[in-house]
């Protein structure tokens, strides 16, 4: 057992707890002054309470038993109580077994998750400070908040989603993977993975190879971006397209043709690799931020490659009135993906919206440009199966 002395439990950083577990500790014990008895009136022990409650949720999420982290109100003056409490904790840890093995976790998987957590600590500290600080000054109110629906929602939206991203990024840095593999390793559904990859693409963090169906991290530690391609063998076919080069040459140095260039390239390639956006920025003399602004705002432009088949459910007003929402739900149930997402095998990408003016055929599903008129929910499966 290693003892670390602090001036106040409020000094405890989320990162300390994560680092302790990364170092292989089986348990972390925090002893602080009793709430309400702070001589200095800053009452940092409440902050510690908040951090500990948050950490327990995080640990629980990655499969570590939250009881490995314990907070007790025992001051430095209470020697006997300290001994009692620590003995009790040690006994508990013996019951729980060694970190990871006691929960039946794979050692490498646990390390991977803890590292992802560690990478996210700066962001989580910000979230905690801005959104999870409670103005209450009683323990029971703290506990109530951290068990509330509101906290759950914030936790999911602000932290878990980013944690999933962090885990996926860690995976991408190790080597090229497919959507299906990411889903298997992280336990996230292909729908979720697809959604997150799209978010990563918007920030330029991923490199996609549509031919091999692989994704890799855009930046390698210590390597130049171009070398990364060579090291990993992940490169988009789209970058070698002659027509794209011609389009760029035509509009070289003309910032005002940005949207039209993007339109042409989008209709040629059906998506816009980040490396290409870099090239466009240089050739057209437009700042990359502006290129990204346009590429990410308009739904016409896709920043990730599509699956082999694009399934488009028309949700224009006329088709809606004829039951397009049911169709969309049915497709969603059958393929397991939501709109703008691609499934694990990169076979189908689901899109919605965009009335094409063929209202007489509604409700319709358009697959790879082929119209399937007047589809009823029971026929959806057959229509989808007809694509190889």
């Amino acid at each position, binding site marked *: 057992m290693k003892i670390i002395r602090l001036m106040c439990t409020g000094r405890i950083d989320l990162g300390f707890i994560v680092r302790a577990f990364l170092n292989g500790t089986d348990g972390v014990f925090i002893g602080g002054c009793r709430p309400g008895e702070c001589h200095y009136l800053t009452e940092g022990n409440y902050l510690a309470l908040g951090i500990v409650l948050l950490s327990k949720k995080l640990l629980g999420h990655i499969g570590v038993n939250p009881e490995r982290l314990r907070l007790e109100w025992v001051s430095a003056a209470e020697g006997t109580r300290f001994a009692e409490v620590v003995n009790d904790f040690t006994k508990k840890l013996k019951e729980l077994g060694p970190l990871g093995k006691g929960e039946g976790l794979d050692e490498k998987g646990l390390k991977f998750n803890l590292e992802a957590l560690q990478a996210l600590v700066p962001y989580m500290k910000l979230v905690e400070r801005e959104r999870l600080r409670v103005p209450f000054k009683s323990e029971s109110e703290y506990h109530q908040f951290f068990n509330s629906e509101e906290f759950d929602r914030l936790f999911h939206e602000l932290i878990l989603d980013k944690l999933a991203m962090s885990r996926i990024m860690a995976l991408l840095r190790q080597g090229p993977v497919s959507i299906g593999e990411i889903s298997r390793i992280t336990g996230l559904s292909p729908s979720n993975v697809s959604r997150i990859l799209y978010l990563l693409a918007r920030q330029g963090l991923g490199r996609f190879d549509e031919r091999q169906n692989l994704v890799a991290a855009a930046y390698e530690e210590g390597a130049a971006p171009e070398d990364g391609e060579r090291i990993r063998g992940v490169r988009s076919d789209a970058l070698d397209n002659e027509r794209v080069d011609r389009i760029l040459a035509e509009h070289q140095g003309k910032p*005002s043709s940005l949207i039209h260039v993007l*339109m042409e390239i989008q209709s040629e390639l059906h998506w816009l690799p980040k490396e290409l956006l870099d090239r466009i920025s240089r050739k057209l003399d437009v700042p990359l931020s502006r290129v990204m602004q346009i590429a990410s705002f308009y739904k016409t432009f896709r920043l990730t490659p599509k699956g082999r088949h694009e399934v488009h459910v028309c949700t224009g007003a*006329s088709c809606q009135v004829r039951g397009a929402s049911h169709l969309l739900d049915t497709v969603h149930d059958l393929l397991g993906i939501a709109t703008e997402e691609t499934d694990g095998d990169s076979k189908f990408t689901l899109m919605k919206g965009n009335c094409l003016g063929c209202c007489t055929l509604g409700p319709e599903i358009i697959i790879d440009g082929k119209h399937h008129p007047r589809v009823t929910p029971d026929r959806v499966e057959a229509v989808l199966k007809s694509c190889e």
Partner: protein
Amino acid sequence: MPKINSPVELEDFRKTILSRKDPHKPCVAICAGAACQAIGNDELIRAFEEEIKKRSLEHQVDLRATGCHGFCEKGPHVVLYPEEIAYLEVRPKDVPEIVSQTVLGKKVIDRLVYTDPGTGERAVHLSEIPFYRKQKRLLLGDNTRIDPKRIEDYLALGGYSALAKALFEMTPQQVLEEIKKADLRGRGGGGFPAGLKWETTRNAPGDEKYVIVNAHEGEPGAYMDRAIFTGNPHLVLEGLILGAYAIGAHQGFIYTRHDSLRLRDHIDRALEQAREYGFLGEHILGSDFTFHVEVHLDVGIFVSGESSALMRSIEGKNPEPRPKYIRTSVSGVWNRPSNLNNVETWANVPQIIRKGSDWYSGIGTERSKGTKMISLSGHIVNTGVVEVPFGTTLREIVYDIGGGIPHGKKLKALHFGGAMGGSIPESLIDTPLDFDALSRAGAPLGAGALLVMDEDTNMVEAVRFFLEFLTNESCGKCVPCREGIRQLLKILARIRDGKGKKTDIALLEEIAEVMGAASLCALGKTACDPLKSSLRYFREEYEAKLQP
């Protein structure tokens, strides 16, 4: 083909074309409109081509892939000239029979003609079909007679005679006056008098002025602009050139969707041929008037159909609207006076010049003149594009032309204007088609997309999906629109799921009021119109879903 350098040469050329045409020569006109194309009429066209070739009839029979015939419900649609026999729901396997029986044998194939679902009566000729009988197809009527890729077809029907008349017999001011007298109102949704807009642009300071065709047609459920522009591009083009002449503009822009390849192809060809023959470019028809046209494509965003956003897009920037403290007719593209009108508005112009404003104002109602194209969709038997004079009652449109509601259901509501329009209940079905009458009822005509909703439609859900559409299309620049729609969606989802609070309806109305007053553009201002009209007429549906 040498350029045509005077009205006389034009008339001579026209006579030459007509003399080359044999009015008795059989012609097969196959609809190649969007919906027919989607159900595979390219195959049908190929089947006809093959059959004609097989029988070596290339010189005896003309084959024409035309624009939309309008009767989308019964497509693929084939019309056989000169008898004007209309065959519906034609399949490639019917082709050999059609060629031998009807084209050559002059016999009608009963199973392919229109059969009235009620009476069983057959209608052989196009004009006998009830769907067409009640319409007044001044704009769309020529679609079956024209191959959009051949300017000669348009010329054969009198095309560009209005232009010749205007350039050589009228001053620009006189052309403008005719349009004003005809009281042509914008067909894109605003209903603003076109003549006044033209006049503002004409009188605005500056030598360089522009005219623009808004062919964006982003409203879901609206497809009539595509029908006329794909089927008869020269009609729109002639209108545009006339407008440019009246306003004093020498540069025109056509702004259209990127995803309709056939439309783009037809526009490009039409422009190319017009330039070749001298209807565009320097010294049009030998006059002093010069006019050039450029085509611009949209980027798939609904808001880029809004006039100021569209102009931003032409300039190569993001299509973001601006508040109209200064009208775009005074300061538009590159801050120069720009007159923007809808496809259908431009298409109306040639006939007004050719036949005069007195004739035109004889059609329609007191303040809504001429005809209007309506695209019928939703729960209606005959989906398609129809054209009726203003003043026609909605009852006639829905029942006599539209064929009523399928599956014997009752009509619940009629919705105009798509996501930014309104619904009126069945009780108002005798309202005449008129800009002002419909506005007063709470369902402004908009672009003319009529969505029919039957008794099973959930009005709360309908409003919700209109708002969902708009929330994706909002440019996000102003708070009332961006945040307002988002909050409305949350509240409506709550109501739809039966968890509505008692105060929710008042809250919806309050948000709607703020959005209407404070949004920068029409999208935000009118986003709440479906909500407002449904609260006006279908309030019980909302109240039923509130928690006690």
